[in-house]
């Protein structure tokens, strides 16, 4: 198969990448762009570790074709912190609440939480649980994750952060 040159906008930067139509977004992000914050877990769209934001919506990059993402704004975990390296309030809240154990689910958890808070800035505990239900943590750390998202929603609302 002939590779095609596509343009992907990831975290505000445009990358020109040769891809095969069958290349999955998660592999392109990790191997060709070199942003390894996005994790590949089950590879079947079940675990949520590969979640990235496409035009603000949470999407499973392990069952998304890279070639189908041209002209869209992709955000990975590397795109959340500010230019000076200061963490996004959701990231900061995960750190402060000990919501990270092994860290493998964390990028997906944080991006899914961001999409949730962008739509619903003050979710209830149940709404948070429902929002992140597609992200599996095998260290069984949901309690602290839910607390971290809840606290982040308060900080972000108070500070008017997006």
């Amino acid at each position, binding site marked *: 198969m002939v590779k095609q040159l596509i343009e992907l906008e990831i975290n505000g930067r445009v990358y020109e990448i040769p891809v095969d139509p*069958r290349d999955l977004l998660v592999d392109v992000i990790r191997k060709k762009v070199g942003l390894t914050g996005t994790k590949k877990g089950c590879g079947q769209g079940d675990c949520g570790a590969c979640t990235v934001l496409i035009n603000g*919506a*949470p999407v*499973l990059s392990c069952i*998304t*074709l890279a070639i*189908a993402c041209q002209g869209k704004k992709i955000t990975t975990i590397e795109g959340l912190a500010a230019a000076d390296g200061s963490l996004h309030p959701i990231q900061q809240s995960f750190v402060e609440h000990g919501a990270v154990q092994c860290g493998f689910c964390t990028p997906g958890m944080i991006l899914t939480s961001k999409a949730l808070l962008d739509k619903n800035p003050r979710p209830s505990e149940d709404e948070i649980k429902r929002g992140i*239900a*597609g992200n599996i943590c095998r260290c069984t750390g949901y309690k602290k994750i839910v607390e971290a998202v809840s606290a982040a929603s308060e900080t972000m609302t108070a500070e008017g952060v997006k």
Partner: protein
Amino acid sequence: MYLNHFEYFAPKTPGEALDLAGRLGNKAKVLAGGTDLLIMMKEKLLKPEYLIDINEVKEFKGISYEPGEGVVIGAGTKISEIETSVIIREKYHALHQAAGELGSAQVRHMATIGGNSCHASPAAETPPPLVALGAKVVISNISGDRELPLEEFILGNRATALAAGEMLTKFILPEPAPKSASRYAYIGLRDAMEIDAVNMAVNIVLEEDGRTIKDLRLVMGSVSPRPLVSAEVPAILVGRQFNGELVEKAAKAASGEAKPISDIRASAEYRREVVAVLARRLLKETYAAAKGV
């Protein structure tokens, strides 16, 4: 888990999409959300030579409501848009509930309503409420459209009425009757990302008196190769005043009509019990909602 090699097309108009579908026929698959298709390709259950990505075709997307007529939903409409649509929530509540229970937030942002019917999984969430609400599908090819009731479109496990060169393009739902309501319920191992052991939708229309059942549809999912429309429950309830005794009789009848299998998710015996539980619960809930309208 690599996919097979294929050629990729992203048409921008319905004409381009249908032309490609016509030319490529059975060698092509339509890529909508990809949440089922790409997984089947990863597992080598499907090896299409061509993928026709319809996500750029605006005409295949969106929800448009015409008072008195009903709603038309583009087959490429994302489940998340259906879940959050005010019209769907208010007028086609069972569909709103089913959309909200499908997969996870990620899956709902990717998957489409058309894909959920075309994939024709016996356990799919949206076909039972769509059938209960009287949905028709529009099937298009390059020379025109045809319409079918959704229950005649889904023929069995992974089998639909789509011929080579055809695409499912729209769902048409009639305006709900006055004094009517619809509800959806399911049983599964957990709330997110599970595959339903049993799901069910009920649509009830009441007479002017607000007590007599004028019309009723009860549709079961995951207990038959395709959505199972109950014949016995309407025969028991239509034309009668709603009461607890009839509901018990109807729930038993639904359980008798179900043809479940035993699999990793539940035994056939358990599924038959659950059908009776869901039927009883949904008939009561839907009746109460219809009365309240």
